[in-house]
């Protein structure tokens, strides 16, 4: 066998279909007899439904059914559950079609099933709903005010749950003794994920077998199947096959089980015909779970040596109108536990209040809790460094957890397994030419030019997750992952994984690793994912878990294949299995290469079983369920350099650098691609993106005209490098890389913009840094820099 493929920049095997327009996304599918669904959605954020008149819609030619919430209730269809529970959490029902009350703009009140999409959409406009509008509440802090409209009768005060971590008294004591403290009121803007493929679902029902098949845009088809079959429809799980074919991006938004999936399944059985629904983008804006939306008061304390002693954080995390699949986990265990970052901190106390509001549900969006934690921690660090008159990188250096201190127990539950933060920062500072850049900044300021340099260090916990641990914290699911490696008589290898690829390139990266483990050509390995009918049970892709958890399962299953192959080869070679070595793609008695058996010889004999060990089962396939021992902890330093035009307020990205440590890299093309895209999404949050509601709960930024994603000319070529600190507890030492870019870049860009604005005496501004917001801040600044006079 030649060089290992692990670590090689292999061209992606999935690309040919995508670059030739032959991918197979859910909305590309068309089956015989297929009907189309269109949803009647509430135009009000909060309204009582007095009556629904469907007669006109029903009478239209081509309309087969108009389904209401009451009909589905009568048919025994249950509400959509959440998958994470905290003590005392309120979980009011979340029906696919709301029978009585609309709780956000976009809440479904009826569904049309028709021969064509056009007819369905025309008919949706003919459904007459008698709404009684109710006062709405949009902002989390407003929902908690006395007398605020109650979103659910089950939570009159709108409190879904409260949660805290850390010791309050000990933290307060450190604040009382502090040399210096800083305090920030921070809003983490609400975002709309906007994967480029809008959600779509196609339901089919086979009457004879009483079986359903759902093609849907999912990051985790088994979770969809479990929730829909066991909790919502009350059918045996094996009677529902969920297939996520090519999926055009997810970023969290396709983890969750959505109302439309239930509706098309119900309709497919009712009408005994396939039913498809595909979202319009403006529907995506009011139905796909949003991300972030925190209001936080955050404080930091340091001692006289400029060492961080304590953090105190109080957050209101808006849940929206209903709880989707992982919502309660995001502003708690994926947030409060991350507040240590890379800094040795004695005590941390974080308290979270999660209210319901009349807005789209909020759940995990790329990074999920960790960008929120990183953003406020890194803002506090920069503000504190400025207060102390210290260079922000030196202040960071002084506070890093040292390599000798691992495993490091934080005051907020996590135990970091490995890390070495200073070399990553030094490498990034050298790449950017930090000292020279600071000199240029000073020179520019004298000429009225405002460049900002944002340096952040970050750490994330990903590779979700040790099952017993998350179970103890409220998860209603396991978080292991499965793999099945099946070898054909010809030596061709099929790998079935519970991980799901919706852009991450698993078909390539995972095949590289299997090829290495089995010592076979990569071309003979095919990856299968996204189909509950073909794979063993699995939990899907999110939380940067595919490499550390999904791939670990594949490695372990592959090693079982090698072990069995050695036994078969030993029999064929009349040797003891322990004398067999696996080298250069062959099985041989050590030192006797001329009598080696090929993988083909072994695979064929495993299936023929003609000349075969008596005590060994025939066949050559292995399954492994891998439950990780801990999270993995990628880290790094990111640097954003921006220019702020004081006359227009426009922020322009000049340079962006990253040094990431995600352990050993399977495929650098893919890992770097994840970093590039992640950085762009984080930049979007910092500068462009904001889901803005008016006081009545209308989403003012409800399409691509009003909600701005990063475009090609907003971004620059990313300069990046890596350090490599392997995870000590998984077979390849790999760590996740899907979310790191986003976790880091929002904070880096924010710090850069506020660094640029420092001469104006502006300590903090909430994102996004739109020209208007920056211009107003400059106009309202207390301090007018000399050169701007």
């Amino acid at each position, binding site marked *: 066998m030649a060089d290992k493929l692990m670590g*090689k920049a292999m061209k992606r095997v999935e*690309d040919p279909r995508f670059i*030739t327009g032959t991918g197979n996304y859910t909305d590309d599918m068309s089956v015989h007899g297929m009907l189309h669904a269109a949803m009647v959605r509430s135009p009000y954020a909060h309204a009582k439904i007095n009556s629904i008149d469907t007669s006109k819609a029903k009478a239209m030619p081509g309309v087969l059914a108009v389904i209401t919430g009451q009909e589905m209730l009568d048919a025994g269809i249950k509400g959509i559950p959440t998958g994470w529970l905290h003590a005392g959490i309120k979980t009011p029902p979340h029906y696919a079609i709301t029978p009585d009350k609309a709780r956000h703009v976009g809440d479904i009140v009826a569904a049309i099933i028709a021969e064509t999409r056009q007819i369905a959409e025309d008919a949706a406009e003919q459904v007459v709903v008698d709404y009684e509008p109710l006062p709405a509440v949009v902002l989390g802090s407003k929902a908690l005010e006395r007398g605020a409209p109650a979103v659910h009768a089950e939570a009159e005060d709108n409190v879904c749950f409260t949660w805290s971590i850390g010791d309050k008294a000990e933290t307060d004591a450190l604040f009382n003794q502090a040399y210096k403290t800083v305090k920030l009121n921070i809003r983490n803007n609400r975002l709309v994920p906007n994967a480029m*493929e809008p959600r779509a679902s196609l339901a089919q029902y086979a009457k004879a077998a009483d079986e359903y098949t759902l093609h849907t845009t999912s990051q985790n088809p088994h979770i969809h199947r479990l929730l829909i079959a066991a909790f919502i429809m009350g059918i045996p799980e094996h009677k529902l096959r969920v297939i996520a074919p090519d999926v055009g991006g997810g970023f969290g938004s396709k983890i969750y089980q959505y109302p439309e999936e239930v509706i098309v399944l119900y309709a497919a059985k009712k009408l005994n015909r396939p039913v498809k629904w595909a979202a*319009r983008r403006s529907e995506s804006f009011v139905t796909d779970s949003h991300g972030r939306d925190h209001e936080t008061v955050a404080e930091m304390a340091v001692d006289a040596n400029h060492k961080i002693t304590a953090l105190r954080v109080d957050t209101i995390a808006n849940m929206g109108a209903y709880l989707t699949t992982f919502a309660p986990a995001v502003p708690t265990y994926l947030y409060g536990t991350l507040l240590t970052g890379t800094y040795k901190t004695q005590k941390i106390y974080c308290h979270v209040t999660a209210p319901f509001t009349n807005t789209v549900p909020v759940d995990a969006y790329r990074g999920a809790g960790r960008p929120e934690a990183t953003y406020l921690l890194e803002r506090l660090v920069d503000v504190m460094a400025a207060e102390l008159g210290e260079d922000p990188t030196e202040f960071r250096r002084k506070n890093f957890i040292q390599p000798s201190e691992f495993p490091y127990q934080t005051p907020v539950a996590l135990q970091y397994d490995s890390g070495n933060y200073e070399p990553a920062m030094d490498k990034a500072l050298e790449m950017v030419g930090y000292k020279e850049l600071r000199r240029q900044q000073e020179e520019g300021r004298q000429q009225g030019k405002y460049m900002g340099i944002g340096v952040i260090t970050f750490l994330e916990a990903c590779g979700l997750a040790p099952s017993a641990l998350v179970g103890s914290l409220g998860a209603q699911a396991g978080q292991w992952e499965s793999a099945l490696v099946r070898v054909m008589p010809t030596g061709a290898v099929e790998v079935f994984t519970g991980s799901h690829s919706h852009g991450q390139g698993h078909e390539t990266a995972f095949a590289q690793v299997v090829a290495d483990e089995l010592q076979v050509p990569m071309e003979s390995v095919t990856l299968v994912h996204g189909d509950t009918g073909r794979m063993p049970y699995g939990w899907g892709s999110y939380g940067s878990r595919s490499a550390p958890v999904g791939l670990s399962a594949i490695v372990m299953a592959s090693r079982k294949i090698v072990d069995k192959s050695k036994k078969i080869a030993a029999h064929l070679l009349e040797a003891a299995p322990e004398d067999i070595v696996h080298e250069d793609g062959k099985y041989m008695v050590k030192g006797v290469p001329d009598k080696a058996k090929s993988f083909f010889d072994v695979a064929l004999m495993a299936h023929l079983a003609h000349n075969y060990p008596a005590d060994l089962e025939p066949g050559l396939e292995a399954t492994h369920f891998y439950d990780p021992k801990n999270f993995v902890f990628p880290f790094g330093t990111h640097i954003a350099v921006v220019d702020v035009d004081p006359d227009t307020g426009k922020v322009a990205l000049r340079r962006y650098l990253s040094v990431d440590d995600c352990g050993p890299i399977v495929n650098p093309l893919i890992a770097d691609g994840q970093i590039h895209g992640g950085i762009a999404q984080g930049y979007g949050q910092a500068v462009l993106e904001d889901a803005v509601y008016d006081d009545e709960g209308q989403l003012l930024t409800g399409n691509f005209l009003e909600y701005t994603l*990063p475009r090609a000319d907003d971004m620059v*070529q990313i300069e990046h490098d890596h350090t490599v600190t392997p995870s000590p507890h998984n077979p390849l030492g790999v760590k996740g890389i899907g979310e790191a870019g986003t976790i880091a870049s929002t904070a880096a860009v924010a710090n850069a913009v506020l660094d640029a604005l420092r001469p104006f005496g502006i300590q903090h501004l909430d994102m996004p840094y739109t020209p208007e917001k920056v211009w107003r801040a400059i106009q309202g600044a207390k301090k007018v820099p000399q050169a701007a006079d």
Partner: protein
Amino acid sequence: MAEKVTVNISVNGEQHTSEVEPRLLLVHYLRETLGLTGTHVGCDTSQCGACTVHMDGQAVKSCTIFAVQAEGSKITTIEGIGGIGNLNPVQEGFWEMHGLQCGFCTPGMIMAATDLLSRNPNPSEAEIRHSLEGNYCRCTGYHNIVRAVQYAADKMAGKNPVGAAADD
């Protein structure tokens, strides 16, 4: 529902005569009437560019054009510019430089980039970025898309561009 009208459109070199509703958008004509699902629909406000095709040699967003407006014109879609075994240089560039992840924006991006290179065979990075700003990508941060277009420009200029991948 309005009465159907007849349109004659050449798509990827093949002449089609179809009865369509006047309100049918070109993108839905391509996807639903002709089954050419390589052209995608990513938005409903003509912002995302996933539906970009060529109409009489120019890149257009096929969601902003009614099928009836394409009467008599020549449409080229992603399926018409090259297939496996005979990739167009832009398709090759996207593959070689990892210019795609989920693949959903890719056909529109390739059609827009092809149009750019037909007008400007040697674009600067700024020109590439400016010319692709009508096409959203949520996965790549555009980094490798820019490199893919540069690769294609080099290839079309007869240079021998080096791919980013190790397996070339």
